[in-house]
């Protein structure tokens, strides 16, 4: 099941620079997308979400962009901080499961922010 794909297993950026994490999906019916951050030995923590009726959502240093025609979303972190070093998961909600809350996750991208 590869409905949500994060093709970059890892990313390394310098502190203060922009981190861009990418996610592609195959199911055009997906209508809600989320980004989660996960530290080792902890559960995923919600970061930011976007509905398919929008193309951008911003929350502080985090911005998610959605390109529906390309079935692509990205998470921008500006400026990146060492504490942002974690695994980032993209997830999508299937409207056929809109009353159940089922999320489909990507494989995750490990971000390392170097001081």
């Amino acid at each position, binding site marked *: 099941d590869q409905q949500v794909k994060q093709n970059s297993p890892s990313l390394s950026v310098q502190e203060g620079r922009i981190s861009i994490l990418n996610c592609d999906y195959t199911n055009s019916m997906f209508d*809600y997308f*989320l980004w*989660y951050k996960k530290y080792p*030995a*902890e*559960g*995923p*923590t*919600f970061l930011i*979400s976007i509905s398919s009726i929008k193309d951008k959502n911003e929350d502080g240093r985090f911005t998610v962009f959605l390109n529906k025609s390309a079935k692509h979303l990205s998470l921008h972190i500006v400026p990146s901080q060492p504490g942002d070093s974690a695994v980032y*998961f993209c*997830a999508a*909600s299937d409207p056929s*499961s*809109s*009353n*159940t*809350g*089922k*999320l*489909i*996750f*990507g*494989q*995750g991208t490990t971000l390392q922010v170097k001081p």
Partner: protein
Amino acid sequence: EPEVTQTPSHQVTQMGQEVILRCVPISNHLYFYWYRQILGQKVEFLVSFYNNEISEKSEIFDDQFSVERPDGSNFTLKIRSTKLEDSAMYFCASSVLTGELFFGEGSRLTVL
């Protein structure tokens, strides 16, 4: 800040044994979930639970798995007869509505 709590943090069991993983969701949440992550793989949906019944389950969630909310606060996942391939990190989650899920820290299950 309210959080989802899970116990145990780590359980080691012999193949064929029954395991119960416990979760206390956030108190005003209505939807409850179990996900799992096998080492090196994706976080996978197992089951969602709403209004005291399963609302959706994945193909992974076969007859060996069950969930219940015995007392209005705990939410448990039972694996009746564990297999080696059940070794994974199991995450409980809850939400007010569908959408943003809050996850616990996970219970690591090791089946020997």
